[in-house]
């Protein structure tokens, strides 16, 4: 019996889909069977980031409506055989989602996989509520800036009141990922520090991801950044995936500026 993880943020553009793709692939690399599901009906993106856009035949709406079986709709990743992908519909909108159908689908996926990762849409509307409804745990992605924090706070509030687990008297496990940290900006006090964010949201931190210019190129090429061994963001996602699988990895300090080779030479001549 697998576990359902919803990836949420409240605000758009903070890196939910990138996180979903990379964490999913990271878990698969760890040898666990994993499926990533795009719940952003009408605005699917996950297929592009995974490099599978030309492989989509059936989508999640067709599966829920019984037009295709789960097995037919699942697409195997080209990077790892443990990772599968279920696409969102690009032509329908969020109103087609229905609790009972979602429940049947996620139960099926849970039986088949160790981890079921749901990529939530931005916002806190019905699409978001359906994504978190049957989640066992949630990954909350934030950027170190106030609007992202407030929106995430609101999203957590809804998670704590509307998910099925909470209604059953249990608690949804929450993990925080602070994404797009710019060490220089943190040092100069322009960005919120991790401590501030943890104070405000008071949920456990599972990883910090530094700002990485390579992510844009990785997304464009459909090759998740975790495949790039030299990328700091990719390495951060790798550590996060291992932590989700239950192993302890020490938290890396990405907020202090490491002086590069050229900076060191400049320092000599100062």
């Amino acid at each position, binding site marked *: 019996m697998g576990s359902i993880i919803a990836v949420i943020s409240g605000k758009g553009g903070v890196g939910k889909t990138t996180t979903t793709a990379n964490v999913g692939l990271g878990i698969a690399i760890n040898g666990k069977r994993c499926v990533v599901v795009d719940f952003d009906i009408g605005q699917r993106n996950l297929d592009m980031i995974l490099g599978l856009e030309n492989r989509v035949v059936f989508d999640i709406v067709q599966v829920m409506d019984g037009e295709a079986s789960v097995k037919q709709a699942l697409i195997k990743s080209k990077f790892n055989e443990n990772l599968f992908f279920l696409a969102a519909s690009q032509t329908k909108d969020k109103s087609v989602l229905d609790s009972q159908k979602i429940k049947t689908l996620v139960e099926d996926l849970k039986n088949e996989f160790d981890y079921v990762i749901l990529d939530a849409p931005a916002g806190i509307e019905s699409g978001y509520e359906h994504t978190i409804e049957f989640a066992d745990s949630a990954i909350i992605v934030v950027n170190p800036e106030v609007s992202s924090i407030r929106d995430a*706070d*609101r999203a957590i509030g809804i998670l704590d009141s509307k998910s099925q687990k909470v209604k059953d008297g249990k608690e949804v496990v929450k993990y925080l990922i602070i994404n797009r940290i710019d060490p220089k900006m943190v040092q100069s006090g322009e960005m919120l520090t991790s401590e501030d964010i943890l104070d*405000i949201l008071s949920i456990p931190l599972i990883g910090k991801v530094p700002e990485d210019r390579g992510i844009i190129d990785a997304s464009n090429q459909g090759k998740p950044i975790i495949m790039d061994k030299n990328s700091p963001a990719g390495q951060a996602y790798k550590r996060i995936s291992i932590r989700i699988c239950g192993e302890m990895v020490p938290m890396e300090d990405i907020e202090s500026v490491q002086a590069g080779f050229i900076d060191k030479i400049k320092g000599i001549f100062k």
Partner: protein
Amino acid sequence: MQTKQSSVKVCEVTITDENEFIAFFDTNYNLFKDYLIVINGDMSEEIKEYMNTKGLSFLQNVTLPKGKSRKPIEQELENEKAKYLEAKKQFEDELSKLSTPKVVAPEPVEQRDLKVLDSLIRSGQELNIEGDLLLLNRVNSGAKIVIDGNLIITQIVDGAIRCNGNFMMLKASPKANIVFHNVEVDNSYLQNRLNRVELKNNEIVVTPVLKGTNWEV
């Protein structure tokens, strides 16, 4: 109509002996040449001619307004002012009777139904509390607490507070939006670890409580 005001010096005379009168004005001409001469009683043609030749302006048998000294004038002004104030007060009383039915203010209750909460108040959550509240956790940006009793919050407040109790005790919270008895509290007054906010004579009074206490622990 055009009016012009000027004050003139007046010399009132009653003529008994015409020669004496002429002699008096001959000798004191320089003194009286700018005066208005008011003659009470009869005056002969000779006197009139004498006055005209000398160029003295005069009037006959005029009742002059009696000048008043300063004190009675001030007294009168005072009385008028008092009357005006009285009337104004009466008018205002009537007005207030018309607009607001008289409400008997409830006796302030010292303390009732104290609730103790240790949960984080997240964005979008709104607490409506009847009675008092002791909150041991943060109030995040976008959250709101509406309370009619007393309020104590030991952690930082980034959200909104509407309190109508006897007092609030709050940490220094620069981002909070605090309204106490419909008056917005200036965050810059909340500078200490814990501040007591009260309403005294319709004025918001902020007093520091426990200056050095560290509530983070």
